[in-house]
């Protein structure tokens, strides 16, 4: 078995429960830190750790992914049980466990509790959603139930922050030895058939003879879960002999009437019913409620699908409409800052570095912060109100035709915001083949880093035409279409991957859909803030460094003396304010422009760009776009910063062409034709829609698949798709007359 991680001085307590029992809300309330709360089962894909507020001794709280059982099927559930058993690398085994129970659905929630108490750790039971218990008229005799089970029970309404102090006190009591682990004769295991208990003992003894010390719960799981997580671990540690012994034990159990794995649910639910018998009364379930009325429309085969497409269309329309104002403010601040720098710093390398490198580079990326915040807000609203799981239900039939299930839909939707959490969210997919295909197509979904590229090109080169009294804009429609490109290409890609790389029967689809609710403003704020901070810090680190490198490559090795002299001359002429000097001003401006163009053409960047120009010319690009696209392979939003720096270095000395958009419009081929036509803009956008330009995504694929093969595969297939797609787009658009 893997090394056990025990023996830390600090106490640690794990929070576990079924999905959507309010676990993350309780974690936030206990630790005073933020965690994502969602409606989709298994939204907590990452392990979250916090410190218990109000405790004199430091107590670490670990928020584990929601699970229905310890029979690990998905990667997410495997992490949960590994942490609880102390087998997870880098995580100390918790000293105690808090089991969060949805008190309105005791039977199913206590099933998980029946497994947890067999971990032989002190356990605190939290009956959450107590407000709903009272509203719906459930009757639960808490003190009698607590005595019968033999564990302390605390009632809370975590979303309203009620009962949190009692949980805190109980956790402190647990870690100071005030609560003991439950005696084994009180657990559900004590009612398991004797044949099973004997087989478990013999398997444990066999493992011991091989020097593999295994806790009882893990031995049990090896026997119960066919091809499960612990069987795989046993096979690795003990070889095929152990697996053979496990299979023989299962055959013996089957013949003695102990049906593997179904006997477990039978005995555990039996134990649960015994515990709650006579102590719990609940109102009649399955009444039609408001969620059902909404679902009748939103999950309708055709109406539901049409609603989903319309909703996405409206979201992208509103992004273009709402973000116009904040974008203008940021653009104004960028111009203002550049003005200040030019006023205070004399012409030279430092002024160019700050103005052309830092401000033009980072500023052009930061302009897109409002759109990204708005996109994240919409996605967070849809997730938190419970709509996303309905959308997964609606698309399941369509997904089944390409061999996937609705389960893949949520990670893919999440990838529209960012592929990194999208790929991590695939941990909730049980089928390994489905998970692999989902990971490989997730980067095709148009993430928020592509949004700046689209917005820049759409607002500069797509006509600002509106329809329906200004409510429907052509620019918004093109933006929506660009987001569809990746998703549409993902359909045949997924089919191809499933058919040739991961063949096998279609997986099953089983998912819980939670009731609709109003999104929590706190949760929305937290999620938008999280992403905005991530975006800004990326702009401040990776994009900052790239901007400086691109600036240096575009600044050196030229001799800037002529340019600086012309700049100083122009500044003194402008400062004197003499109208008679107009001709001299024009002359100085012309020599600045000529010097700038010559310097950028002769720079390292210019030389490199000219070398690759033949490669990108078929796509309708000049060397500057080619260099910017190549520089943006580590992170796609770098293209904006790179173009900002390149055009700022080679920009015309003209007040009206401050913005990157205007500078792009002014770019010319040597023969005087504009570099950017609608066809060029579409070709760049399609390239960015399909290309794997994100080192963070490729690293995440490496981590999740545990191999370099798949990130390399993604990179190669997506880059090839992007080149072919951009070439086709440029060729067709030029043929349609968009090339000038």
């Amino acid at each position: 078995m893997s090394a056990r991680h025990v023996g830390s001085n600090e106490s640690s307590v794990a929070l576990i429960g079924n999905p959507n029992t309010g676990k993350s809300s309780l974690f936030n309330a206990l630790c005073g830190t933020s965690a994502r709360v969602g409606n989709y089962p298994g939204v907590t894909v990452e392990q979250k750790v916090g410190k218990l507020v109000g405790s004199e001794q430091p107590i670490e709280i670990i928020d584990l992914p929601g699970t229905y059982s310890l029979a690990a099927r998905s990667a997410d559930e495997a992490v949960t049980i590994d942490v609880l058993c102390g087998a997870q690398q880098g995580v100390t085994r918790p000293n105690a466990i808090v089991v969060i129970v949805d008190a309105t659905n005791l039977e199913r929630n206590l099933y998980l509790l029946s497994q947890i108490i067999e971990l032989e750790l002190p356990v605190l039971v939290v009956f959450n959603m107590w407000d709903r218990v009272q509203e719906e008229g459930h009757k639960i005799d808490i003190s009698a139930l607590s005595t019968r089970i033999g564990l302390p029970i605390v009632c809370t309404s975590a979303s309203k922050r009620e009962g949190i102090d009692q949980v805190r006190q109980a956790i402190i009591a647990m870690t100071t030895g005030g609560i003991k682990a439950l005696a084994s004769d009180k657990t559900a295991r004590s009612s398991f058939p004797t044949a099973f208990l004997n087989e478990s003992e013999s398997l444990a003894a066999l493992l011991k003879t091989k020097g593999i010390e295994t806790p009882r719960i893990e031995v049990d799981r090896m026997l119960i879960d066919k091809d499960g997580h612990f069987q795989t671990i046993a096979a690795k540690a003990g070889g095929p002999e152990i697996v053979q012994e496990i299979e023989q034990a299962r055959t013996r159990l089957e013949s003695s009437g102990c049906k593997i794995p179904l006997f477990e649910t039978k005995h555990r639910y039996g134990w649960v019913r015994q515990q709650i018998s006579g102590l719990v009364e609940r109102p009649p379930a399955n009444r039609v409620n408001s969620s059902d009325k909404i679902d009748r429309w939103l999950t309708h085969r055709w109406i539901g699908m049409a609603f989903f497409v319309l909703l996405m269309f409206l979201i992208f329309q509103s992004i273009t409409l709402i973000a116009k104002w904040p974008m203008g403010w940021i653009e104004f601040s960028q111009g203002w800052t550049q003005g200040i720098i030019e006023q205070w710093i004399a012409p030279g390398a430092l002024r160019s570095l700050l103005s052309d490198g830092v401000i033009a580079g980072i500023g052009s990326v930061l302009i897109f912060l409002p759109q990204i915040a708005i996109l994240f807000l919409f996605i967070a609203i849809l997730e938190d109100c419970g709509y996303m799981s309905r959308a997964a239900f609606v698309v399941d039939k369509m997904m089944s035709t390409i061999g996937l299930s609705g389960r893949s839909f949520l990670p893919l939707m999440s990838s529209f915001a960012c592929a990194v959490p999208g790929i991590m969210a695939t941990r909730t997919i049980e089928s390994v083949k489905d998970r692999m295909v989902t990971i490989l197509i997730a980067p095709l979904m148009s993430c928020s880093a592509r949004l700046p590229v689209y917005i820049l090109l759409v607002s500069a080169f797509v006509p600002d035409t509106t329809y329906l009294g200004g409510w429907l804009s052509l620019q918004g429609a093109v933006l929506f279409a660009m987001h569809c490109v990746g998703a549409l290409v993902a359909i045949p890609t997924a089919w191809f991957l499933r058919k040739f790389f991961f063949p096998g029967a279609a997986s099953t689809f089983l998912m819980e859909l939670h009731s609709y609710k109003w999104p929590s403003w706190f949760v929305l704020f937290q999620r938008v803030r999280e992403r905005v901070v991530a975006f800004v810090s990326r702009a401040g680190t990776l994009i900052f460094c790239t901007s400086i490198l691109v600036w240096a490559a575009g600044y050196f090795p030229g001799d800037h003396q002529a340019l600086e002299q012309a700049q100083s001359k122009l500044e003194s002429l402008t400062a004197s304010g003499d109208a008679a000097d107009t001709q001299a001003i024009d002359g100085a401006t012309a020599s600045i422009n000529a010097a700038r163009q010559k310097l950028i053409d002769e720079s390292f960047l210019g030389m490199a760009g000219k070398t690759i120009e033949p490669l990108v010319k078929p796509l309708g690009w000049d060397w500057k776009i080619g260099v910017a696209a190549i520089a943006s392979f580590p992170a796609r939003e770098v293209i904006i910063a790179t173009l900002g720096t390149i055009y700022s270095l080679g920009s015309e000395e003209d007040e009206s062409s401050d913005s990157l958009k205007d500078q792009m419009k002014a770019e010319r081929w040597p023969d005087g034709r504009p570099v950017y036509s609608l066809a060029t803009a579409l070709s760049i956008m399609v390239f960015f829609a399909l290309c794997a330009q994100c080192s963070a995504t490729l690293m995440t694929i490496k981590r999740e698949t545990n191999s370099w093969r798949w990130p390399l595969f993604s990179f190669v297939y997506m880059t090839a798709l992007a080149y072919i797609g951009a070439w086709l787009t440029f060729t067709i658009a030029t043929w349609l007359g968009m090339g000038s």
Partner: protein
Amino acid sequence: MSANPVPLDLLHPEDQGVIVDMCGDPCHLKRLQEIGVQVGCNIRMVCPGTPCMICVEGRRLSLRLDEQAEIFVSPAGNE
């Protein structure tokens, strides 16, 4: 509870009943049981088809009805 058990996929929207039998692949059945679908549970069809949406003891679940698991329900008639 007078009618004969019928497969779940024959229920119409808002039809209610009690699960009387489940058969199919044991591993898939166990998953269904762990998520709360078991013999004796009250069940209501919300949206039939593949996948279908059902309400089991007040919890809405969506699942594909295929050969991996067959669920038989004793219908209780519409309320």
